[in-house]
């Protein structure tokens, strides 16, 4: 009965998420939404989103986690905080977006690769204490994980190299974050 098995494997994480405290917290964050659409109208990236912010909050409040967590919208937020600033209900929308992103990392298979990128970031600062490039590190990790990406990044990367602004991860920084990060990532009851 492999199909039943697969079915259970597929739905079990979703059920877990539907009942999770983390999702409950997001629901509390956006429960006061009155669907006025100010967030969507203010969002610079709404044009690229499959669900607008307003639609996303509606689905959260109606318990449609599956749609919410499968939405590309979570990865189109540039954390500009304009929605948070302008929401007439003062809802913490940018934080809600980040919380949903964390849930999506745990849930969907296709976001595993994106999650891997963030985990790499964490591994990186864990061993170096400081990031060996912020924006550039992103390029480096993305390029090393997707064989198609280096092409897209070649021109900008060359420009940076030309100005001596691109550095390879070097020797570790002085402050080490190992103990602090282990404490955070292994703490009891981590969502």
């Amino acid at each position, binding site marked *: 009965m492999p199909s039943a098995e697969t079915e259970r494997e597929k739905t079990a994480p979703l059920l877990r998420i539907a009942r999770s405290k983390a999702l409950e917290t997001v629901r509390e964050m956006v429960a006061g939404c009155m669907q006025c659409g100010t967030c969507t109208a203010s969002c610079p990236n709404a044009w690229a989103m499959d669900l607008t912010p307003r639609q996303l909050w509606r689905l959260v409040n109606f318990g449609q986690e599956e749609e919410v967590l499968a939405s590309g919208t979570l990865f189109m937020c540039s*954390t500009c905080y304009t929605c948070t600033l302008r929401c007439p209900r003062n809802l913490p929308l940018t934080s809600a977006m980040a919380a949903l992103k964390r849930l999506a*990392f745990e849930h969907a298979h296709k976001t595993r690769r994106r999650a891997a990128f963030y985990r790499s970031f964490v591994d990186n*600062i864990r061993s170096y204490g400081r990031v060996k490039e912020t924006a550039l590190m992103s390029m480096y990790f993305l390029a090393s994980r997707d064989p198609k990406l280096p092409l897209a990044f070649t021109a900008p990367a060359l420009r940076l190299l030309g100005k001596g602004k691109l550095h390879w991860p070097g020797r570790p920084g002085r*402050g080490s974050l190992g103990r602090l990060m282990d*404490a955070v990532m292994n703490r009891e009851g981590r969502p």
Partner: protein
Amino acid sequence: MNYAYYPGCSLKESAREYDLSTQAVMESLGAKLTEIPDWTCCGASAAEAVDDLLSLALPARNLALAERHLPGLDVLAPCSACYLNLRRAQEETNRERRVRDEVNAMLGAESLSYGGGVTVRHLLDVLVNDIGPERIEAAVKHFYPLLKVAPYSGCQILRPYRVFDDPEHPTALGRVLKAMYVDVLDWKAGNACCGASLAATKHKVALPAIRAVLDAASEADCIVTVCPMCQMNLELYQKEAGRRMPVLYLTQLMGLALGLPEQLLRVAHNLSVTPDFLRSLPDKAAEAATT
């Protein structure tokens, strides 16, 4: 005026010129910056996507270090992204005792503890409110009345915490520029988003945002920024965006106005600064009257 200096990772790597020019400008304006000993990454834009407590514990570690080694000093951050992460740790640990206890339970792994006594300030806040336009004007050697500058504040110093500027109509950056008699462009894109980390993860979505800012600045001679992430996004993709525009850090332009040497400002180091732009600068300047 003494500050606990948090340069952040970018300023020690690709944005070295922002670090050098900040230190040089602040010193010549009479402010003393002491780097927080053993500071570490504030979490950048990635920590919050991994774990909420991590996104508070990483910046809080630096606040705890500042509190221990540089008691009583405000923390000064020139990078807007670092500023927001540190500020968020300050605000959240003060807002709820439970949050500070949770953070401190983690910091305990390093025998650190944060007591809640640190105020995080952005460089622009310190320039406008502690040093002030009058003192800046008095220190300026070369005014730039013919240089039209687009003041780009970006997002994170304005939102979500309304600390020292109006998030819908920011004026702080313009006030500092006016102290150098710069011709400040009146525009609406000064608080628009540069795409932030989407420039790396969703290039096609970030590019229109970058292009919109560059286009809105088309009447200016240059854009001035106060954040290495904004700076990089506005500089790095100009070819793809189809518009050339010099982008300078505020402290680089201030350094020029204060007459500081190029090796401390590294203006020529910016990706978007052309030899033509550098050659045109003296023509746009006027000497301050010597009294």
